[in-house]
């Protein structure tokens, strides 16, 4: 069939190429991801389920850890798509068209992965159904269950609806027709169908926005509804939503950069897209800092002793590296997205031998982190346990100077490569957001209200394996999806082109008419 009706449309060709061709790279990647995921399943089934949660690093009073961190993180990532694409649709941003599909797919897969972590975290997963048998609607966890399932259904629908015409296209173009035929729901692109579809999309995009906002608000309520120090905060709802959108955009940008490179979408994912999303990222970055600042200032100013224990735990205690690491990661957005455009000159000593300097600096940055990690318990388990004793002043100055120098030396490069710079920023944002979730969950639990000896939390290999499972699973689902469905919404982009053209036509007619009329 493919041969009988070869596509000549370049958009269609580009969009369908990944489905039609499978490289060895794909198989290799899929294999690696499946292997990682299987490793996670092994850790889950043969260690955690067999022995109980004792295989984790959790303890009393640190009852929640990496699993809940992952849960919050992935639910945050899920704001990538649906929310962003819905907002862009509602506001009629035409440039959105090529990126909506990716964004929505990320949402769906993050939502598949995230909530699983709650099951990982459960002591008795075999009794999971009790949540439906004996629900207690006073519990924020129940609110979570409701919101997330509604959001999940909503975002699948939201992903699926605009895909119907594309599936119909695939039905007509590809083998395995049965699969596509069922999914295409008999799409024949009649006007009535088109009209209905567009209406459904509009309704969905309006409906999904409050749902998405509610989801992360409710996730934050899980923490905020308790009276734990530094959890019990009214700001948590919007704070979590902002963080979620922030990391969601970052995840979307990462996906865009990679797909653009791998599937050769350069034609359709233009620097313009990156620039605009970059602005959005910057906005969220500012908002995120605003919230973080408010959060910490309020805590600090109040000086409530229980909260101050947590506060200092983050600022200068066991979790200082994670906290300041998070701040650094979040700042990277500024470094990479704002600084290059400011009229700053890179100082000569950093500029001249940039090619030499850059790797050295990069190594130095890593070394600084490692050196400090050696002194901090939490970081030791989170990073590598390399022994590199350094005098403290050297550590501190390295910590301060190296990243700045490093970034500075990169400025010229970033200025010339907006895509790379947004990619770098996004990577850091995703890491930073994971750290943020961790730093929200754990330090509070380490410092319960009633003093409790010395508490600490070191995630175990099982927890890391299941974290790897999450990431691998998410990427795997995304990659497989991209091999089955076009990642560029062909139909929507054509509609966009048509609309553009018709507008152009209309304009020209008007212009013509205007010119026809003699003065």
């Amino acid at each position, binding site marked *: 069939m493919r041969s009988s009706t070869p596509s000549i449309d370049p958009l269609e060709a580009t969009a369908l190429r990944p489905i039609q061709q499978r490289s060895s790279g794909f198989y290799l990647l899929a294999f690696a991801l499946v292997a990682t995921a299987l490793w996670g399943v092994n850790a889950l089934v043969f260690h955690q389920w*067999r022995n109980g949660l004792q295989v984790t690093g959790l303890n009393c009073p640190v009852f929640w850890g990496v699993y809940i961190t992952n849960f919050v993180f992935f639910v945050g990532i899920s704001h990538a798509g649906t929310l962003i694409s819905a907002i862009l649709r509602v506001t009629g941003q035409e440039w959105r068209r090529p990126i909506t599909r990716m964004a929505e797919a990320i949402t769906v897969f993050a939502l598949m992965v995230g909530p699983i972590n709650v099951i990982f975290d459960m002591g*008795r997963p*075999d009794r999971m159904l009790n949540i439906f048998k004996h629900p207690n609607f006073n519990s924020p966890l129940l609110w979570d269950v409701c919101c997330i399932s509604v959001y999940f259904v909503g975002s699948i629908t939201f992903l699926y609806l605009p895909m119907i015409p594309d599936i119909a296209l695939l039905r007509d173009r590809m083998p395995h027709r049965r699969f596509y035929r069922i999914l295409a729901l008999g799409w024949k692109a009649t006007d009535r169908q088109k009209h209905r579809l567009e209406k459904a999309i509009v309704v969905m995009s309006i409906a999904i926005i409050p749902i998405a906002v509610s989801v992360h608000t409710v996730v934050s309520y899980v923490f905020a509804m308790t009276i734990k120090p530094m959890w019990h905060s009214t700001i948590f709802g919007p704070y979590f939503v902002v963080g979620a959108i922030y990391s969601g955009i970052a995840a979307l940008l990462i996906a865009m950069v990679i797909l653009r490179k791998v599937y050769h979408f350069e034609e359709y994912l233009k620097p313009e897209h990156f620039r605009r999303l970059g602005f959005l990222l910057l906005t969220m970055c500012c908002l995120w800092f605003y919230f973080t600042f408010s959060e910490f200032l309020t805590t600090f100013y109040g000086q409530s002793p229980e909260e101050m224990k947590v506060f200092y735990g983050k600022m200068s205690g066991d979790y200082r590296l994670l906290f300041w690491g998070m701040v650094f990661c979040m700042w990277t957005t500024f470094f990479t997205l704002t600084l290059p455009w400011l009229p700053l000159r890179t100082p000569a000593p950093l500029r001249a031998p940039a090619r030499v300097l850059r790797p050295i600096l990069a190594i130095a940055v890593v070394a600084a982190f490692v050196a400090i990690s050696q002194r901090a318990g939490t970081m030791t388990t989170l990073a590598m346990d390399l022994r590199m004793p350094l005098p403290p002043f050297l550590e501190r100055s390295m910590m301060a100077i190296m990243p700045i120098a490093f970034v500075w030396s990169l400025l010229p490069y970033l200025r010339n490569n907006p895509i790379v710079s947004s990619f770098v920023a996004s990577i850091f944002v995703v890491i930073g957001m994971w750290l943020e979730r961790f730093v929200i969950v754990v330090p509070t639990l380490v410092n319960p209200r009633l003093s409790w*000896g*010395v508490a600490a939390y070191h995630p175990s290999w099982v927890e890391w394996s299941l974290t790897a499972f999450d990431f691998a699973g998410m990427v795997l689902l995304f990659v497989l999806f991209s091999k089955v469905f076009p990642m560029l919404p062909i139909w929507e982009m054509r509609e966009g082109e048509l609309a553009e053209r018709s507008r152009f036509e209309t304009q020209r007619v008007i212009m013509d008419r205007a010119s026809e009329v003699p003065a």
Partner: protein
Amino acid sequence: MELTRRQLLAIGGAAGAGVVIPAWLRSTIANSGPEFFPARNESLAYRKNLESFVPSVCQECTGGCMLKVRVIDGDAVGVSGHPTHPVTRGAVCPKGPASLQALYHPDRIPQPMLRVGQRGEGQWKFITWDEAIKKVAHQLQDLRHREKPHTVTVLDGSRAGLTRTLLERFAAAYGTPNYVHFNWTMGEYPVDAFRAMQDTEELAYDLTNARYVLSFGMDWLQCFPSPIEASRSYGLIRQGREGQRGRIVQIESRLSLTGGKADEWIPVNPETEGLLALGVAHVILKENRFDRGFTSSRTTGFDEWSRIVAQEYPPDRVEKATGVPQETIIRVAREFASNRPALALSERVSFFNQLAVHALNALAGNIGLPGGVLAANTPEAGTLPSFDPDPVARRGGGRPRVDGAGTTFTLASDAPQQLPENLLAKKPYPVNTLVVSNCNPLFASPNPKRWKDALAEVPSIVSFSPFMDETAAYADLIVPDHTPLESWQDAPSVTLGGERVVGMAKPAVIPVCRTRQAADVLLKVSHLLGGSVGAAFPWANFDTLLKECAQQAHASGHAKPLMLDPAEEPSDEALSIEDFWEVVTAGGGWTLPAEPQRQQTRFNFRPDFVRSPIANQKANIADSFPLRLCLFTPLAFSHADGAHLPYLNSIAGPQLDERWETWAGFNPETARSHGIANGDEVWVESPAGRVRAKARWYQGAMPGLVNMPCGLGHAAHGRWAKGVGSNPMELVEKLLDPVTGQPDWQSQRVRVYRV
């Protein structure tokens, strides 16, 4: 659209799977046994669930507290305090409930075992009781034939009671002077001072009525004859008397549990408590605040004693030695003298300290008064008939003791810690058989390695231990005793206020293992030995003996049976002896009327010992071992025992929330100066060896000291003790008090470094 066969099958399959798989999952999960639902007690298909409560005696320390054991279908499932027993009054200390774990300890010795491999190698073979008893009897008979009965040494750690009486009687009837009582001095009464000054050991500190308690290093909340009584007294001192909250002052170099609960903690240089006491005495004398009536009429040696004290212990000198400011000494002296009744407590440390502290009680005239030091006659369950040792026994019994008690150590009745040296040196004669009962010298001794070396010189070691502790592991023959809840027991005791009670209990449960009560084994062995030895033990079983005692009590007419149910009153009618026996075994014994405080012998101030080595105090500082080791026993491990019971391991260190490992407490300043962070792993080293511990900063530690708990660091003793923590007693080079022969736990110097 037609429904094809394939589709039909698919739907059917899906529906089937949807129904069957959940059902199967449910049944698998429900049946997956230990995975999700623990099965319990299902071996007995039907529990009859007959619940009963029986009295028993707690033997986890030597307190002799009585328990009320809840027994269901023959299993002991709960423990609480005996409600009417005057010592316990329905309460327990943490060791009481933990005795259930001793009873059902998974690593008990099930039946007699004979060593087959090298000593200490752990190669054993099970033998029958007949074989074991015959073997012991033959061995002992053989020694008697060879005129060497004195080469048998009995090392026993039992509390006062008939079992101990029988062991002593056995030694006497068999012909050895060597019944050596193995004790644990930390937390013990200063009995050496009692004996030296008042000529009796039978004294008690009447805390229940005291208004001012000045303790020189005695962590009395955690020890005392019964920790239950100590706690109850504490409650009384605090809130028990309306409008009169007693004052508690604790003088010690490590802030103990008691120190933490005291009104005031006075840190004092280790081992200088006696000097401080004399400094206090000096002030009392100088300010004329002592009880002149008492000192003049009922004491001897006061004049000389007071002259020396006045001369040698002015507060400024004492301040220098003890590190306690003069003002504090003066204030404490005034408080002590003006608040009556006041008590000065010390534990069984160096003889000098014991005497110095106990003298304060006499100085304040608190002897024989409520709230002071009372005569406390421990009752006897019964009087055993006298016996006639044969010539062999008489000759053997006349030989000098192997531990040097009474000879080397003039004031000591027992000096177990001298045994290793004497065994090694075969002085005054080699020991052929060592019988170990109720003690674990290979663990609970200073530098226990000495014991191992010394025991190599003993050809035969018999142990009664129900657990494979260090000493049992080093024995040749183990004849395992019952645990307390399985035994017939008697527990004569006297309360701090002088109430006298004889506890008596029948076995609460059927023995878990094929063990036998040590007393029964002893009776069997003596019957096999026959002759005059057998004749000294006319009882078939231990319970026959107990019944005989009950008969005596019944005949005396003074005994009032205890009742396990507080609501029940013992009937006033005269009971027949059979009924009396029924009632006392079901109720837990009988009380005896309190003895009036009899006129005691004159208090002797022992001025011969008051001249102290005040100048010697700083002599033995070695720079290579700059710190001082301060050992203590947490309540959970009192008598250095209890680490084999997991519940006790979990509560070992209440102050620092430490458990299941050995910690070393440092003053933060000391720790910093040694570069030790809170939580670091450190080595604590002395010339005798080194042990590993977790360093903990503790504000209640004096600078220059390392505090370590005794009780952990077993090399044997079941799964929960073996290999857990480390034993700081290994650091103590043997230092025995020259008069009492008791170990000096607190003088060891050590150094500390990070692992």
